[in-house]
């Protein structure tokens, strides 16, 4: 709908409509991103930022509309789509019983074990200042430390598309700076980022998408 006549975007969505329970969360939403692009989702609580991110990840089926990668509908090959994205949601997926290192090892295995070397693991822990916490169990982490472990997952998988739902929750200023740096690097390599925020997180040059504009009532 909003696509111009030029070459297909790397990642775009058209006419997305999302129904959750009996609520029409957003309607006729569209965006396009090219290599290195970023989309910043804003909007009040309950606007549908998380819902959109889950739709993009393939966790929720949209009621209608299409999401396309390189011009091809992602529902055509869901497995390929899952293999190209990394998702960090509101929940950290950190097990109380596992140490930080074990947590990362488990995810590394799940996301394609062979590929993840010990160095990658170390680099991920190092990037997030988790080295000192490597042997601390999840149950003993502070909120921000847990969040950092969840974000370190991004470094384990070499995925072009990052979907981040309020990634800066509970992070201190230094960690927010780390995240901003890593996002910039990722975009520099041609990666894409879709992130939601209520402020305090900057992605220079990102397209801002206010979900409230696509609310059913506003149509």
């Amino acid at each position, binding site marked *: 709908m909003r696509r111009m006549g030029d070459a297909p975007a790397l990642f775009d969505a058209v006419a997305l409509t999302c129904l959750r329970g009996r609520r029409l969360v957003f309607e006729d939403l569209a965006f396009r991103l090219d290599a290195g692009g970023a989309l910043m989702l804003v909007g009040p609580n309950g606007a549908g930022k998380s819902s959109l991110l889950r739709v993009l990840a393939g966790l929720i089926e949209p009621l209608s509309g299409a999401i396309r990668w390189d011009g091809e509908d992602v529902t055509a090959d869901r497995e390929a789509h899952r293999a190209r994205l990394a998702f960090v949601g509101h929940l950290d997926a950190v097990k109380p019983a596992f140490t930080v290192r074990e947590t990362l090892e488990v995810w590394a295995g799940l996301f394609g074990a062979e590929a993840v070397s010990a160095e990658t693991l170390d680099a991920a822990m190092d990037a997030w*200042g988790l*080295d*000192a*916490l490597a*042997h*601390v*169990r999840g*149950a*003993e982490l502070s909120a921000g430390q847990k969040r950092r472990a969840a974000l370190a997952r991004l470094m384990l998988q070499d995925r072009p598309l990052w979907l981040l739902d309020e990634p800066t929750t509970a992070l201190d200023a*230094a960690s927010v700076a780390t995240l901003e740096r890593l996002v910039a690097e990722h975009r520099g390599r041609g990666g894409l980022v879709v992130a939601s925020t209520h402020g305090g997180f900057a992605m220079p040059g990102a397209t801002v998408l206010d979900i409230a504009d696509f609310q059913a009532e506003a149509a």
Partner: protein
Amino acid sequence: MHRFANPGRFMRVADRLQPWLLWGGLALLVAGLYKALLDSPPDYQQHDTVRILYIHVPSAMLAQGAYIMMALGSASFLIWKHPLGDLLARSAAPIGAALTLVCLITGSVWGKPTWGTYWVWDARLTSMLILLFLFIGYMALANAFDDPARGDKPAAILAVVGIVNIPIIKFSVYFFNTLHQQSTLFRREGPSMPPEMLTPLLIMFGAFTCLFLWLLAVRLRGEFAKVRLRAIRAGLVRRAETAGRRRAPAGGPVEEGAG
């Protein structure tokens, strides 16, 4: 660390005793096994199966001894908050559980030829099984938490409460109708056992006691080391973290903590 200064002195004594207990126990064991297996008469009724006795009885008695030790340690920990009591109980529990298991296994192996069954649900056997459950429950509770300070009190209470089982084991053969032998060793009239059986039994009992104490000392050392290791590792995490923090904003001057 001052809390463990006292156990430290205790450990030095235990360390000095350790080799004596080990070698003495092994020597007694060899002597006892020789006497029991080769140099004692077969029973006129039970023939050679009676030789199980020389393992069965010492393990039964020491299992109860281990429990009593665990309960006393726990009680002293509860009453005087003495950490040594807790360490002692934690160390004794697995040994006691193993001895209980040995008693149960030898007993049931013995039961098959003599009573015609491996197991009956009579009072002596059942109360011994409960002793095993108590050991398991104690170990489960005491080791259930990463912070040992959380499990120690409930576990100690369990150990103390469970002591009621000991007299039940002891007197079950008198109060209930049971297949199991009544006491032949500790009776008011003195032991009613031929000396050629009594001697190896006593030697084996001595061997088991020495080895039990030796194992206890080894485990105590282990428990003690665990406590210290945990303290040291905690100190390391703390130090590494502050070092990391200091890289970003400037903090105060860092001194190595006393830990």
